């Protein structure tokens, strides 16, 4: 009896631990910390992933510029600290490339009413917009468009999906 109880407790503990572990994994991956500074390679055609003025880095998976989605907490629109380096990298790019244009697409998860979610999605777009402008980007380079819950990237009704849908996408319309 005692053993059975202890076993049950163990199984439960394991389940709880597994649940916790999963939650950590489910968080959208934070951006990688900037690599330690090292002497720049001498080859001329190699791209420095930390050169946020270089358009080639928009497609370079090693560069923060290739990351263009900012994720949010439920019913919140503040940009969390782990996503700020991404926004700052894009601010640097937009400053250096005055002809570049972005649309900040604000999105929400499916919970709650659609029109309210349009408002919430716009807030998320605006939050990124404010950071970009604080980083010196002229407002003419930026447009905010809210899609609310109308354009989910994931269709299941659970938190795994919802946290991927609560986002602002930085979409370049001109590089």
């Amino acid at each position, binding site marked *: 009896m005692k053993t059975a109880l202890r076993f049950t407790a163990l199984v439960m503990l394991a389940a709880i631990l597994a649940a916790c572990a999963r939650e950590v994994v489910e968080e959208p991956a934070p951006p990688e910390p900037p690599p330690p500074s090292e002497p720049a390679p001498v080859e001329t055609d190699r791209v420095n992933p930390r050169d946020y003025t270089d358009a080639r880095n928009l497609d370079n998976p090693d560069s923060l510029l290739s990351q263009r989605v900012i994720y949010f907490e439920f*019913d919140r629109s503040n940009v969390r600290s782990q996503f700020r380096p991404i926004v700052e990298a894009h601010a640097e790019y937009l400053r250096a490339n005055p002809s570049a244009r972005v649309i900040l697409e604000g999105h929400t998860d499916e*919970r709650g*009413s*659609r*029109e309210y979610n349009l*408002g*919430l999605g716009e*807030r998320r777009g605006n939050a990124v917009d404010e950071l970009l402008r604080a980083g010196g980007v002229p407002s003419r380079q930026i447009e905010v468009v809210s*899609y609310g819950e*109308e354009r989910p990237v994931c269709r299941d009704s659970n938190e795994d999906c919802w946290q991927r849908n609560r986002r602002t996408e930085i979409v370049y319309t001109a590089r």
Partner: protein
Amino acid sequence: MAVLLVALLLPALASAQLRIEIVDGVEGAMPIAVAPFAWDSDMPEPATSVSEIISANLHRSGLFDPMDEAQMIDRPTRPPEVGFGTWRLLKVDHLVIGRVTDAPDGVGYEIEYHLLDVHTGRILLSQALPVGPGDLRFGAHRVTDAVYERLIGVPGAFATRIAYVVVTDQDGDDELFELVVADADGHNPQTIVRNTQPILSPSWSPDGRKLAYVSFATGRSNVIVQDLYTGQNRNVSSDRGINGAPAFSPDGRKLAVSLSRGGSPDIWVIDLENDRREQLTQHWTIATEPAWAPESGRIFFTSDRAGRPQIYSMRSDGSDVQRETREGRYNARPSFGLDDRHLAVVWSDGDNDFRIAIHDRETDRLRVLSDGRLDESPSFAPNGSMVLYATRQNGRGVLAAVSADGRVRQRLVLSEGDVREPAWSPIIR
């Protein structure tokens, strides 16, 4: 592939039809019989007869228990032919009889019908209703409206239409959004507009002729007003930011909308005759989903000015703002029926379960009517009897309807795709 094939086979404007299932009816629904109507016309009789449509309507309301035609021993079509004793033995309270003839002027038909009280033998209602050549179904709905009103005491809402949005997956990541208008029983679905960009928030004009809706066809939100008879559409708002949540004023001349051109969504009213705009709210929070109260003309709306979304109301000039809902953490998307007293809303007490509720403004009590997890977009029937809303079933969007007292439940299912954003039309004369 299967989806694509179906899409190709469909005629350009017709759309798949909603199937309405009764989930819950009223215990002790009224026994009634609709005897087959006589067909006295040179035109061929349609496959579904007028009496079958009336019977199905009454059944769908959940308040009636119509007798099967096969069980009817007697099939009178005129009052003198009715042997009341027989109907009493069959335990029927009321009887509907009638005939369809060619209209006296030769255009269309005339439906002559009678509603009889089986116990007293009295005729409760007699009418000859002229209907246009293609309008027999609609005529049957109007007969049902009259029968319903005579027996229940409130006008029926059978001769009405519903608008909704259907979303189907296309090849690749693409989706197709269609705004569809159908009869209230799901028949005659017509696609009003289709696009690969989102369509939402359809709203009827009070005469039932026009729909206002939000379209992302340009990649940004725009408010469109479309005439259902001419097909003509007009972009009435394409400002910077959100253009959303259209709602016609009770006189049909104005459109309340939510615009974020000032930095955050506020309620504005657009005069549809001269395009003049008036800003009614000015607050840094979200104000959206305006709804005009049918009696007072006050405008109700959703705002999170107190932290979480709640319903507020104001005069139609923006003055005298009052908070309306307090029960629960989330109240949004107000919808009115017949009166100012009952307000259907999306309600939640937490972050995960969103349900349809009716807020009674006189008692300040809230009654939760649905039990889904993601119920939204409530739309009152114009007679206040039922609330139509969007819910999910097996991961798919479906529509559902619940009576205002919670006793009758229906599900409206489409064979393919996601159905959402229902809007019940006003009563169409």
